[in-house]
C-alpha cells in the first residue's frame, strides 16, 4: 500500500519518541532516533533519509536551527516539524526555515503517518502533473474536469479539490487537516464538519455515476481512495 521509508526521528521526550518510533515501525518504516539537536544535524548530514520528523524544542540545538543547518548544507530531505507551539507565527517561522510540513502536538499517529507518506512520495508525483487517473476515474487538472469511463461528473470547486487530494494520494490516508490545508488553505482545525459535508456530496455524485464507492472512511484518521480496481 505504501513504500518503506528511512525516517530520522528527532525527539527529546523519550515517551513521545518511543510512541512515534513504535508507530513508524508498525507501518514497516526503518527508524533512526536522535534525542539531541547536534546529533540530529550530524546524522542527518551523514546518512541518507527519506524523511525527517523534527521536534521543534530540542536540547543542544533548537529544531529550527537543525533545519536551517540541513538546508544550508543543501540536504533536500523532506522535513516534518513537530511542535507544541501552535501559534500562527511559530508556523510561519517553521515553514520559512524550510520545513515541508508542520504538525502541532498532540497529534494522532495516523495523522503523522498520512503526512509522512505524502511527504515521502512527493517527488514521483510532481505538482505539475496535469492528469490524474485511478481506475476508471480520470481527472484533468487543467480543464478542471472529472470523468468516469468517459462520462463527465460535474463537481463543485471544493468537491473537485477533495477528489484531487484523494487521487494524488490514492491508496493512502488523507486526513481532515490535510484537506483543510490543501482545499481550504486553513492551517487550523475549525472544529466543524465542512470536510464531511462536502465529502458526502462528492461521494454521492461519484456513486451516482460509477455505482461504486472508491472512497473509504478510515476511522479516526481520514479518507482513502482505493487504488486497485
Amino acid at each position, binding site marked *: 500500500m505504501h513504500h518503506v521509508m528511512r525516517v530520522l526521528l528527532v525527539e527529546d521526550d523519550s515517551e513521545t519518541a518511543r510512541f512515534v518510533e513504535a508507530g513508524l515501525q508498525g507501518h514497516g518504516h526503518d527508524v533512526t532516533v536522535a534525542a539531541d539537536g547536534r546529533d540530529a544535524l550530524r546524522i542527518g548530514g551523514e546518512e541518507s533519509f527519506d524523511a525527517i520528523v523534527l521536534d521543534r524544542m530540542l536540547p543542544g540545538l533548537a529544531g529550527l536551527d537543525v533545519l536551517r543547518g540541513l538546508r544550508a548544507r543543501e540536504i533536500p530531505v523532506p522535513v516534518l516539524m513537530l511542535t507544541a507551539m501552535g*501559534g*500562527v*507565527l511559530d508556523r510561519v517561522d517553521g515553514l520559512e526555515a524550510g520545513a515541508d510540513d508542520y504538525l502541532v502536538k498532540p497529534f494522532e499517529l495516523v495523522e503523522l503517518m498520512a503526512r509522512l507518506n505524502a511527504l515521502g512520495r512527493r517527488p514521483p508525483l510532481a505538482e505539475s502533473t496535469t492528469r490524474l487517473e485511478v481506475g476508471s476515474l480520470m481527472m484533468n487538472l487543467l480543464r478542471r474536469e472529472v470523468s468516469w469511463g468517459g462520462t463527465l461528473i460535474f463537481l463543485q470547486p*471544493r468537491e473537485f479539490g477533495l477528489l484531487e487530494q484523494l487521487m494524488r494520494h490514492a491508496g493512502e490516508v488523507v486526513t481532515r487537516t490535510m484537506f483543510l490545508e490543501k482545499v481550504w488553505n*486553513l*492551517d*487550523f482545525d475549525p472544529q*466543524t464538519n465542512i470536510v464531511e459535508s462536502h465529502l458526502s456530496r462528492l461521494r454521492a455524485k461519484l456513486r451516482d455515476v460509477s455505482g461504486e464507492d472508491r472512497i473509504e472512511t478510515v476511522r479516526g484518521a481520514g479518507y482513502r481512495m482505493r487504488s486497485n480496481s
Partner: protein
Amino acid sequence: MTAAYRIAFVYSAAFALAILVLATAVYLGADAEYRHQQDLAIAEENAALVREFHEGGLPDLSKAIAKRQARSVVNAYAYAVFDRSGRRVTGALETTRPEAGSHDIVFSDAREGADPARALATDLAGGYRLVVARDTEALWQIDRTILLLFGGAFIVVIAMGAAGALILGGYLRNRLSGIHHAAMAIIAGDLQQRVPLAQGNDEFDQVGRALNMMLDRIGQLMENLRQVSSDVAHDLRTPLLRLRSQLEQVGTEEGAAARAIEQGDALLTLFAAILRIAEIESGALARNFLPTDLSALTTDMAESFAPAFADDGRLLTWTVDPGLVVIGDRTLLAQAIINLLDNTTRHTPGGTTVDIRLSGNPDLVFLSVADDGPGVPVTEHQRIFQRFVRCEVSRTTPGNGLGLSLVAAVATAHAGRVAIEDDTAGFCLTMTLPRIGAQD
C-alpha cells in the same frame, strides 16, 4: 550636580573664558598701540627741539623749552638738557642724566613726587644731551579703564550664567520630576500612574506622551497575560476535574477511556483557543498582515459551510459585495467568520436561516452574520464577548465560551470592532474593519 546645572555652568564658564581672552587681547593691543603712539609723539617733539638747537644753539633751545613749559598745563611733556658732566643746564625735568635712546624713567614731580615717564634722550653737538619725557599716567588710565570695563563684563557674565543655570536647572528639574515621580510610583506598584502633561507640545510633552502610550501598551500586555493566567487557573479546573473522574472510572466502566481521551482533547482545544486569543491580543501578528480580499474569503467560507448547514437542517444565505479588501491575516479572519457561523449553529434550532452580509463604504467594511433564531437578551449583550461567558440559555450546549472572545480579539487586532445589533428579531453580529483601496 544635575545635568541641567552642569550644562548651564559649562556654558557660562565658556562665555567667561571668551570674555577673558577678548579682554586680554584688547588690553595688550591697546597698550602696545598707545606706547607706540607715545614714542612717535615724543620723537616728533624731540626732533622739533633738535631743529631749534641747530638753528640757534643752546639759547634758542632753552627759550623753546621755556615756552613749551609755560603752557605745560595742556602739554604733557617735560624737558631737560644735560651737559657733558651730567649737570642739568636747562629744562624742568627732575631726573638724572639718562643714556641716549628711549627709556622708561622715573622723575620727581613737584606736586606728585616720583612719577614714571617715557623719555627719549638725544645727543646734541657740544656734549649736550636733550631729554624729552612724557608722563605715562594717561597709559595707566587707559589700561585701568579697559580692565575695569572687562572686569565688570566678566562679573555680569558670571552672574548671568549662574542665574541662568539656576533657572534652567530648576525648570528642567521641574519638568522631569513629573516623569520621575510617575516612574517611581510605577516601580512602587501603582501601575495606573501616568506622566503629567503640560498644555504645550514641547519636547517634554512629546516624551511624556510617548511614555504614557508605552505604559498603556505595557498595561494592556500585562492585562492580557494576567487574563490568560487567571483563565488557565480558574476555567481549566472544571474540565481537569472531570478528566480526573473519568480516568478513575477507566477499568470499571465501559467506554470511560474513550471519554477521557475526548475530555483530554477538549482540554487541549481549550488551551489552544486561550493561547490563540492571547497571541492575537499581543498584537505580534500584525507583522504578518497583508491586503486580504475579504469578499473572496467570505464567499469561500459561505460556500464551504452551506452544505454543512443544510445537513443540520438550517439554511445559509449570503450577499457579498465584491472587491472589499482589508489589511489582515487570512487565517485569523477565516477563523473569525467560522466562529461566527459556528456560534449560530450552536445556539439556534433547526430550520433557522442564517444570513451573511458583506458590504462596505469608502472607509469601512461591514461583515454581518444574522439569524432568525431566538436571539440573546439585551442584558447579556455586554458580557457576550468576555472569555468563558456563556449565556444562561446556552449552558447546556457544547462550547467553551471563547468563540466570540476570539472574534472580538480578531476585530481589535485588525483595528476594527464587533457589535451586536439591538434592533433585529434574532441575533445579529456585525464586525467592522477599516477598508483599503483595491489591491494594487
